[in-house]
């Protein structure tokens, strides 16, 4: 029956009096549904949120078998479990813990990835990136990765929701093309890529040092604390294949905690990644995942990443990056396909996006010997340990020895607040240098009244200018000579020497 604007109550009464209840009832129902329409249903957000909550509760609610078993469990065992749980300080329900270790999950993920790669000619991944860093928000960035099974061909690109190319990295068996960038997501659209011979690039990528360095960059804000300790510039790289490359390597486990030692990085201390399987949960799309928490030994507890793996396929489905406990960005797998070569144009891994300039990379650059690179401060004004206030006009003389690449830049990116996990960016130009030894002078100003009280440290480093190790800043740590430059804000002046 079609709803009407009004009910004719006279007719309605007559129908009721005649004993016909169904039609008056329908009339009322139609009138009511007209005023309270069906499309006032729950919002999609609410439905999704509740659905996910229920799925996550599902494993926490004991089923019939568990209930039956529980009837036979003696109280002493229960008390024992409670005491054990309390003893190890677990606040989570044991029911939610995966029955495999983080290392097993990571290794199985690595194996699975290899199997998938071996199963076809090519693998295509599409990931969606949401970025929430420092007040900058960018949602729906699409990261796509094509890889050949034999590792000879790869294309990785990121495009924002307006179609701007943010990053481009490609190689075939003879050539590599890579965009040079500082901040992938917050930065500018890619205008050019470097073209370089494939072999030196491959060797450097396989180098443990560079891999670790790339890994460090790729984990983004997770590594900022270490960046600051080591004097590296802040980085926002979000490449995925680097994260994936860590899977299935030599993890050592003790209890729930597994560690992976990446060895000394760039002449510094060992980088040790800790992984812990935390819990299982349901994603909104209905897939059940293991959560593995990655943390860098020595970094504050509130810097970490959560990796989510499908419990059946061990596919890495999502990465969440937290800094100071706040979500910085998340990347989730949107699609994965096994492709044949015939699915792609013949020149796919040689083609460059329209409007992107190709620049040649100088041949023969001796990449890979980063441990020999050095940067150090020879002299500084104000001198080390000075108390500073107001606007400071600083001048540094910086010595360097560059052996790993033909070209690089000396960079003083930030002041680092000793004992804290923050820094203050400086407006300082990068000074280009070429392979060899020498010194440069750099001047800059900053307002020290904006800085918190305490010691502020400056550590210069080399910055990449060619694009082969983009967004890196190296040789800032472990410099054997030179002065340790720190200035003090609001410190009590030292007593005058009598």
């Amino acid at each position, binding site marked *: 029956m079609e709803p009407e*604007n*009004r*009910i*004719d*109550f*006279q007719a309605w*009464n007559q129908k*009721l009096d005649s004993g016909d*209840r169904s039609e*008056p*009832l329908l009339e*009322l*129902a139609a*009138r*009511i*549904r007209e*005023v*309270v329409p*069906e499309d*006032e*249903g*729950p919002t999609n957000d*609410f*439905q999704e949120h*509740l*659905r996910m*909550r*229920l*799925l996550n*509760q*599902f*494993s926490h*609610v*004991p*089923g*019939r078998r568990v*209930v039956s078993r529980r009837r036979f469990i003696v109280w002493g065992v229960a008390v024992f479990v409670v005491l054990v749980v309390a003893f190890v300080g677990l606040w989570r329900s044991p029911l939610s813990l995966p029955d495999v270790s983080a290392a097993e999950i990571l290794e199985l993920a690595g194996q699975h990835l290899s199997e998938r790669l071996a199963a076809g000619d090519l693998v295509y991944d599409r990931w969606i990136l949401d970025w929430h860093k420092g007040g900058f928000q960018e949602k729906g960035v699409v990261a796509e990765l094509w890889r050949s099974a034999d590792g000879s061909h790869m294309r990785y690109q990121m495009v924002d929701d307006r179609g701007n190319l943010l990053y481009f990295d490609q190689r075939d068996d003879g050539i590599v093309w890579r965009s040079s960038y500082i901040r992938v997501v917050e930065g500018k659209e890619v205008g050019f890529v470097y073209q370089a011979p494939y072999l030196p690039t491959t060797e450097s990528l396989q180098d443990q040092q560079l891999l670790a360095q790339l890994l460090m960059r790729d984990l983004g804000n997770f590594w900022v604390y270490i960046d600051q300790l080591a004097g590296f510039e802040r980085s926002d790289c979000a490449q995925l294949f680097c994260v994936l490359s860590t899977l299935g390597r030599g993890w050592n486990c003790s209890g729930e905690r597994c560690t992976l030692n990446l060895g000394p990085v760039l002449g510094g201390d060992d980088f040790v990644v800790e992984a812990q399987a935390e819990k299982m949960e*349901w994603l909104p799309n*209905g897939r*059940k995942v293991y959560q593995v928490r990655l943390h860098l030994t020595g970094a504050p507890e509130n810097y970490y990443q959560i990796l989510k793996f499908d419990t059946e396929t061990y596919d890495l489905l999502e990465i969440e990056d937290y800094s100071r406990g706040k979500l910085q960005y998340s990347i989730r797998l949107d699609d994965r396909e096994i492709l044949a070569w015939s699915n792609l144009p013949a020149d796919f891994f040689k083609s460059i996006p329209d409007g992107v300039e190709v620049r040649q990379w100088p041949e023969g650059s001796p990449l890979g010997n980063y441990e020999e690179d050095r940067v150090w401060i020879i002299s500084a004004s104000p001198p080390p340990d000075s108390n500073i206030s107001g606007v400071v006009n600083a001048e540094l003389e910086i010595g360097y020895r560059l052996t790993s690449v033909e070209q690089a830049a000396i960079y003083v990116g930030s002041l680092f607040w000793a004992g804290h996990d923050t820094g203050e960016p400086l407006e300082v130009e990068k000074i280009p240098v070429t392979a060899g030894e020498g010194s440069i002078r750099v001047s800059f100003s900053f307002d020290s009244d904006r800085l918190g009280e305490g010691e502020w440290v400056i550590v210069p480093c080399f910055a990449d200018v060619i694009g082969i190790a983009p967004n890196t800043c190296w040789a800032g740590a472990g410099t054997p000579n030179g002065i340790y430059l720190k200035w003090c804000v609001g410190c009590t002046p030292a007593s005058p020497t009598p």
Partner: protein
Amino acid sequence: MSSSDEASLIEQARDDPLAFAELYNRFVKQVFLFTLRRTGDRALAEDITSATFEKALRHLRQNGWSGKIYLAWLYRIAHQQIIQNHRRENRYFSLPPDQPAEADIEAQVQSSMQWQAILRAFQKLSMSDQEVLALRLFDSLSNTETAEYLNCSPQNVSVRLYRALKHLRQKLEALGEYYGGVNHGT
């Protein structure tokens, strides 16, 4: 979906979260509308819908379910939640805000007034009358489904429905001016 399919899905949902998710997908909108129409408050309706499905999940996992019509059972859980929320107010339904009416269209104004009159009369009914009418009017349950919800026979539902309609008419008559004025031409 046949009742046997539904029963099979419910049995699966005891141990299979995806089956439970399927049940949830199927009924969440109806449960939400059930509560919204009774509370007139979307936020409260969301809370009650959440609580309803959480209770349903716990009950299903631990005790299973052996009823005939799952939706009617969900409605009963939601009903209990609404009663708890409205216990102090001693009423079951909230009057929604006046419907916006375009002032220059008399028919719409009258229509809106008529709606308000129906709801006012509705609110003056006993809880039992409100319940049976609401299940048929608002929630479009059949006699059988209403019987499952009310835990009585379909014949009993017919009797209760007849009485409730009669009472509703009396209340509308008691409101007088609008009901008589518009429809009786006085």
